[in-house]
């Protein structure tokens, strides 16, 4: 009976060990061949099998936040403009329209000349602009002020949508860039609107950062100016532009004043051919003729100005082309502007009706034109993003960390093994076998679950050595105690394991409990997660290696000797 039990245990341990060793150093996804049994083959397989974290193999870890408050602010302002225009179109007088946006509070306000018409105005506005209660806007009237405020629930929903949209756009941009094996996901609490991007192998992410951040909000607008042949109306300061509107120093809702840097022409000044011209200001009409959402394609092409002069050619979708064609057809000789991120890039008059193509000029370099085309193709970000965390590690620094971690592990292991062999003599061998098996199975577990090994993960492995040894110490000390109290060797071993087992379970479960907490509360710190994962894996494996395996070895020792075992090397 006992013999069969022992055989059964040995077979289980044998199978698990072989499978574990194969997972760690065997080839995955192909049949093993001769080279897999050489030292270099084993090393190669080991490197292939273990997924190293960015801190070990090099790469960047970027956390960005979508500035959803900017998105909601823009939405409110656009709605205020649209509401005022809708009211005016319906023949009502509106004295002022603006949006009030303080933290967590977004309101669209129309100031009326005559509050008695509020009901009709509300109907006229809500027919054209989606400020209905279904869209989360609640209407109220106080004095001459009509106001719509956005409910908290709808704010959250819109912010969430904006974040998801930003995530998709960033994904497109990353894919077009051809970053290898990027990880892109939401980060932290959902309400924090953060996105995590990990890029292995890229240790200097500056270019990618700039590219992802580019808002690329494109608008084609009507510039307020007398038509060609007189030149386009520009102003030398913002104040001058506002004064030209004759609106008491305010910009009416149907107009905007934007900066415009005229394109520097080549060869006007031999010494400084591309000297920047001073910034001017122009007045444009709101709303825009069409915006970037109508883009079908955008490409960087070389312009007439020379080898370092590039421009972006774009094509519009069907719906955009229809709108654009209709507008250009009826506005021959009027001036049109190309606005990128609230800055006028170029102004030209309409020579003839244009349907679906256009270009953005502005003396772009090849790189910046290509970047702009790429970001235009991916679509505009719904809101600006800001970087809140950047961690990048070069491959050499990572390699140093691996070396340091491996050295520390080997030294730690060597010290522990030495002590166990000296202090527990024969039984020390038992502990050492259990310890080595623990390390192998732990790494096998990491590989099997596809977990990544990080620097704190290596620290977790070193600590597991400590925990694994603790189980053996607990058992051995208990066996010694039982022996001292005069028990026979087999019964001392039996009792020692029995008593120590309860304690081992208790200690392991407490540490697992704390590691699980660590895991769930560390969503913002992937590094700490790596540590928690290795620790839990190590503890679970330890229950097998320190208790089951160690006990089997004792059983085997006892069964080999005579029926009456007199002494035990412990």
């Amino acid at each position, binding site marked *: 009976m006992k013999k069969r039990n022992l055989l059964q245990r040995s077979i289980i341990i044998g199978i698990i060990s072989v499978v574990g060793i194969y997972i760690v150093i065997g080839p995955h996804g192909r049949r093993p061949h001769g080279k897999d049994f050489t030292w270099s083959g084993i090393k190669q397989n080991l490197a292939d099998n273990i997924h190293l974290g960015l801190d070990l193999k090099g790469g960047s870890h970027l956390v960005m936040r979508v500035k959803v408050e900017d998105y909601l602010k823009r939405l409110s302002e656009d709605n205020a403009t649209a509401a005022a225009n809708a009211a005016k179109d319906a023949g009502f007088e509106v004295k002022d329209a603006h949006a009030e946006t303080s933290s967590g509070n977004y309101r669209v306000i129309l100031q009326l000349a005559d509050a008695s018409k509020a009901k009709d105005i509300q109907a006229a506005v809500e027919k054209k602009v989606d400020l209905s209660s279904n869209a989360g806007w609640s209407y109220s009237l106080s004095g001459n002020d009509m106001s719509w405020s956005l409910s908290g629930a709808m704010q959250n929903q819109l912010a969430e949508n904006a974040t998801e949209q930003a995530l998709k756009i960033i994904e497109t941009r990353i894919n077009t860039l051809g970053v290898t094996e990027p990880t892109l996901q939401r980060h932290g609490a959902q309400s924090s609107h953060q996105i995590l991007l990990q890029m292995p192998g890229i240790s200097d992410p500056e270019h990618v950062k700039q590219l992802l951040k580019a808002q690329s909000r494109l608008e084609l607008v009507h510039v307020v100016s007398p038509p060609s042949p007189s030149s386009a109306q520009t102003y030398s300061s913002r104040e001058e532009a506002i004064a030209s509107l004759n609106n008491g120093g305010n910009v009416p809702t149907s107009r905007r004043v934007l900066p415009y840097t005229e394109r520097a022409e080549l060869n006007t000044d031999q010494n400084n051919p591309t000297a920047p011209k001073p910034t001017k200001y122009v007045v444009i009409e709101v709303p825009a003729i069409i915006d970037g959402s109508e883009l079908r394609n955008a490409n960087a092409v070389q312009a007439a100005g020379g080898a370092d002069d590039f421009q972006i050619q774009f094509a519009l979708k069907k719906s955009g082309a229809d709108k654009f064609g209709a507008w250009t057809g009826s506005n021959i000789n009027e001036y049109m502007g190309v606005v990128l991120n609230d800055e006028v890039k170029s102004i030209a008059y309409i020579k003839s009706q244009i349907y679906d193509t256009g270009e953005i000029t502005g003396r772009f370099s090849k790189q910046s034109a290509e970047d702009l085309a790429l970001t235009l193709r991916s679509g505009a970000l719904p809101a600006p993003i800001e970087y809140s965390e950047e961690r990048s590690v070069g491959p050499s620094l990572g390699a140093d960390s691996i070396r340091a971690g491996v050295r520390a592990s080997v030294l730690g292991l060597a010290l522990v093994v030495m002590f166990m062999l000296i202090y527990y*003599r024969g039984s020390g061998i038992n502990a050492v076998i259990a310890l080595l098996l623990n390390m192998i199975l732990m790494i096998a577990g990491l590989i099997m679950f596809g977990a990544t090994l990080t620097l704190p993960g290596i620290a977790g492995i070193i600590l597991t050595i400590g925990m694994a040894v603790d189980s053996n110490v607990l058992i051995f000390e208990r066996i010694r105690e039982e022996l001292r109290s005069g028990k026979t060797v087999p019964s001392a071993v039996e009792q020692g394991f029995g008593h120590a087992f309860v304690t081992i379970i208790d*200690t392991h479960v407490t540490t697992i409990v704390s590691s699980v907490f660590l895991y769930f509360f560390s969503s913002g710190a992937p590094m700490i997660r790596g540590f928690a994962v290795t620790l839990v894996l190590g503890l679970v494996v330890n229950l097998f290696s320190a208790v089951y395996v160690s006990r089997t070895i004792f059983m085997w020792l006892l069964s080999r000797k005579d029926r009456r075992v007199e002494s035990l090397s412990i």
Partner: protein
Amino acid sequence: MFQLFHEIRIDWLGKRRFFIGLSIMLMLAGMGTALYRHKFHPGGSDAFNLGVDFKGGTVVTVRFKQPPTVEGLRAAIQQAGVRDAVIQPVLDKPGEFLIRIPQQSAAPGAEQTQAGIDVVRSNLGNAVKSFGQGNADIVGTDAVSAVASSQLRTQAIAVTVAALIGMLIFIAFRFEWTYGAAAVIAVFHTVLVTLGLFSIFQIEINLTVIAALLTLVGFDVNDSIVIFDRIRENRKLYRRMSLYDVTNLSINQTLSRTVITSGLVFLSVVALVLLGGETLRPFSLALLMGILFGTYDTIAVAGPIMVWWERKLEAANKLPAATARESGLQPKQVRGSSKSVGNPSRAA
């Protein structure tokens, strides 16, 4: 048999006044230093040397082929418009520097959204490039914005508290809630003492240190559980013995395990301190200190608190006279406990 401790009969609980006093002193020393720094050196030295993870800012690791002097590097960095940079040569790697830059806004006039980590990083890149193309290489960057660092700070505290509560519940479920409370108080003490030492020696506190503190929490509670397990077992074996004696006996019985395990973990951590490199140093140091105090506090803090609490409960349940006969505690404390239940003998 080669053995560390044999047949020891130390009256650990009898020395509880000394132990608890020492613990309180250690805690006060650490927390006192932190408070002192906080109060009397505003802006000069902080209570804790928080890393970029918790304070925000940027740390850049630069590797030079032909390293400049620290002064030269500082001048170049200032030239590039980066203020308050702290330059620290990496001891074990010649030619490598850690450049720490506190949270700062961009040059005046720049857009606020452009401020912070983006600007610092690119300015620093320019400064480093001024030492010649190919000579310098930025091999690592850690930049954390103010918002992210405060999130991480909140999260670190939440994790620690959650882990402590989780353990309290588990021990209360496996033993008694007094045991759980005693273990958790002991652990909390270790965490405070370790943090105090970090304040005294101004060792940087970063995310890995939090991981280390949580590991300590685990190890420390382990130690307590080993003793509590023994107490539970011994109480069944020696029904006549007082809790005071059973606790002493259990601590003594498990003493060799406690010392050997802690010693071995200590050895692996020493390996980590020596060879684990600059990046893991704060982590390793936190573990090193924590294991020392964790081992001490299981014996010196967890045991006495648990016995004292259990006695209080017992005294509240029984007649004071009976408690005085059975108790191994000082008469003064028994009097205190009888007062606290409002002298039930007279009421009866």
